[in-house]
């Protein structure tokens, strides 16, 4: 069975640009969460979506937004990119709130 898949695997953007990251959950999983992992740190919670509705949001600015589609896939959008947005963005899916199965992430570099 396919695990959580994320695309693209790597991305390079410049400051001020916009980026869209995509996530396909494990088949049957209705919950998708997004995390940001800066080098040398643990993942930090950004959003959780369940049945297409936002269930929770971490301490991130409004430049970060997300949505979940009817097929339970999800997109994370970041506007007005800053150098500090450079990180590994992880998506995790689950049947319920726990446990969570993580994808291998999208490595975003801001120049």
């Amino acid at each position, binding site marked *: 069975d396919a695990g959580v898949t994320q695309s693209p695997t790597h991305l390079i953007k410049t400051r001020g640009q916009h980026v869209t990251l995509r996530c396909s959950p494990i088949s049957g999983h209705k919950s998708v*969460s997004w995390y940001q992992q800066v080098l040398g*740190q*643990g993942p*930090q*919670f950004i959003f959780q979506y369940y049945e297409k509705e936002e269930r929770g949001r971490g301490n991130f600015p409004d430049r970060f937004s997300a949505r979940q589609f009817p097929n339970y896939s999800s997109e994370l959008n970041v506007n007005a990119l800053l150098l500090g947005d450079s990180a590994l963005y992880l998506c995790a899916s689950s049947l319920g709130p*726990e446990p969570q199965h*993580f*994808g291998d*992430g999208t490595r975003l570099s801001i120049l």
Partner: protein
Amino acid sequence: TQLLEQSPQFLSIQEGENLTVYCNSSSVFSSLQWYRQEPGEGPVLLVTVVTGGEVKKLKRLTFQFGDARKDSSLHITAAQPGDTGLYLCAGWYSNYKLTFGKGTLLTVNP
């Protein structure tokens, strides 16, 4: 703000040695998870502990949840090079927010 502090941050040992990694918080968590992450990959769940005082074993790895559900430890016996990786503890705060520690980067030298 729920914070999880992990120690040590870095650990480099020789194959065959034992080690313990600690995870501490001032908050009570409903459950706590341990993950291992290798370079270029996402975290992989090792174990979930739920009950205060609970001990779980996974081959050479032993996980313990503190009686007050505020701390946890991971003990590895006879470490092997394949154990190398970033070990992360994470606690559940509410039903949707998983809070991670900064991790312990373990290197096991052959």
